[in-house]
């Protein structure tokens, strides 16, 4: 019996009109049209009707994968507005959870990238090693995702000393497996051939489009909110910024895998140096004013701006996710490459709502291929390369 392979990480709404319209001539992509809005739920509008503490739960649900990032940037914005500093223990707790989330999100991407190039084993293995991390989240905070650790003025829950051992044990396992995945990606000639030199985003384009996160750091644009505008415990621990100059999908993959090592370093140091004390500074009133908070999410800088008039609801809450800046850069990154590489290039920015299966290919105004076909083309290319390297 013919088995149909699952496609579609997030939105398998594959009927037209498409989310990404690839316009081609022959085998080469010449242009890209992007159509978004399928996820637009009006968070900024709803936020104007909620009190400050409820908004923390609202913004968590902007994205499920980086569900710690948005509340983190939001509470930093309100703390900037109100000139509040959380106690040291809370800062370390928030940093630890922020970094653990980075690991889970990067692993999610590596798994999906593996799926796109046809290495389903990579997908299964990498996601398997995500699971103990989600168990740790559930242990500390009560939920695998949408864990709500951030609170204006501190953290909602404490990481108890009996949990440290479990986290350390997981980090040991992770370090070993991460070494294996990094080697697998860098040493395999087929994976290298698929990712190297594909989807190059030059540094000039990266700067012009204002891209963020691994998309920027893979193009030599070494920006990172944790280093540039340090907050909480990020400047109290020792870690390196990972950046490469090539700008291709391989560079972005390397940034993500090597960043996991840095995250492990940060969490280990935070656990070792965790200060005692309270986990929140009580905030009773938000004075009139404005505040900006930013956090380096796995995909890039998350930006929140809050304006207050002294009441218990914000006058304006502006939210900007990193994918908003990264996705338009696909227009230049995908041009000139083959259709088989298109799915990979579009996924390389790690969009927070990956719709590469809602991608379709148009030639002379007529639809040629659907998202499903693109995935198959990508797998065929990998198979061809595998045969070549086997000889």
């Amino acid at each position, binding site marked *: 019996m013919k088995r149909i392979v699952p496609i579609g990480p997030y939105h398998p709404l594959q009927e037209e009109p498409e989310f990404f319209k690839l316009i081609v001539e022959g085998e080469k992509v010449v242009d890209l049209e992007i159509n978004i809005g399928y996820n637009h739920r009006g968070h*900024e509008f709803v936020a104007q009707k909620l009190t400050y503490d409820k908004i923390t739960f609202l913004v968590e649900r902007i994205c499920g994968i980086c569900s710690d990032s948005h509340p983190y940037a939001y509470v930093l914005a309100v703390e900037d507005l109100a000139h509040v500093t959380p106690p040291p223990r809370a800062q370390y707790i928030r940093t630890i959870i922020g970094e653990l989330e980075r690991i889970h999100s990067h692993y999610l991407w590596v798994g999906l990238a593996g799926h796109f190039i046809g290495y389903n084993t990579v997908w299964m293995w990498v996601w398997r090693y995500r699971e103990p991390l989600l168990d740790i989240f559930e242990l500390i905070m009560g939920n695998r995702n949408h864990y709500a650790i951030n609170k204006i003025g501190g953290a909602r829950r404490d990481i108890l000393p009996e949990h440290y051992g479990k986290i350390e044990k997981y980090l040991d396992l992770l370090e070993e497996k991460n070494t294996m995945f990094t080697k697998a990606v860098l040493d395999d000639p087929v994976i290298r051939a698929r990712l190297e030199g594909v989807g190059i985003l030059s540094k000039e384009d990266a700067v012009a489009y*204002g891209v963020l996160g691994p998309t920027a750091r893979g193009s030599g644009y070494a920006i990172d909110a944790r280093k540039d*505008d340090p907050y909480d415990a990020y400047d109290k621990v020792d870690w390196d910024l990972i950046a490469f100059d090539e700008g291709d999908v391989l560079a972005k993959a390397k940034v993500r895998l090597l960043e996991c090592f840095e995250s492990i370093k940060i969490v280990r140091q935070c656990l070792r140096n965790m200060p005692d004390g309270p986990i929140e500074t009580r905030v009773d009133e938000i004075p009139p004013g404005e505040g*900006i908070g930013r956090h380096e999410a796995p995909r890039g800088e998350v930006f929140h701006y809050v304006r207050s008039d002294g009441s218990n609801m914000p006058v304006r809450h502006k939210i900007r996710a990193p994918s908003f800046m990264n996705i338009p850069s696909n227009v230049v990154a995908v041009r000139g490459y083959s259709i088989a590489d298109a799915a990979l290039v579009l996924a390389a920015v790690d969009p927070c709502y990956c719709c590469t299966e809602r991608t379709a290919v148009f030639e002379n105004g007529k639809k040629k291929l659907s998202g499903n076909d693109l995935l198959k083309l990508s797998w065929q290319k990998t198979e061809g390369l595998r045969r070549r390297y086997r000889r």
Partner: protein
Amino acid sequence: MKKEYSQEVLDEIGARFPNASVKIHAPRRTYISVPREDVYEFAKFLFKEKDCRLSIATGIDKRDGMEILYHFSHDPSGTYYSIKTLIPKDDLQIKSLSDFLPAANWIEREIHELLGIDFAGHPNLVPLLTAETWPGDLHPLRRDYADEHKELRLDKTKEDR
């Protein structure tokens, strides 16, 4: 040592843009109010001469006009320079930054559809987020937007562009 932006930059701003008024809220949070006509040149100055990155722009509907804040990040020092400007409600337009800043393209489209501000010179000011069935003259982030619109007649069969 972090490269800090300091008084000399603010002095340069004061000399080049005499109508700008600077407010320092926190060590890395500076807000600069400028009149509408100076925004384009100021943004160009920050982007081209001071290595700042346009992070996003916020639009706010106020009683005395619509305010736009352009948030520029100077990454070497970690400072956010937010350019604030007030636009009168009877003349809701401002010059677009997209001719020298591709990053402004989607940012201005979003403000246009949610608040109704026109960005003169923008190549493609069509709605970005809302559906085709959403009326083009209905701007949800305006203060006079009424919730009755929630039950807008839904044309289930009409396809999007």
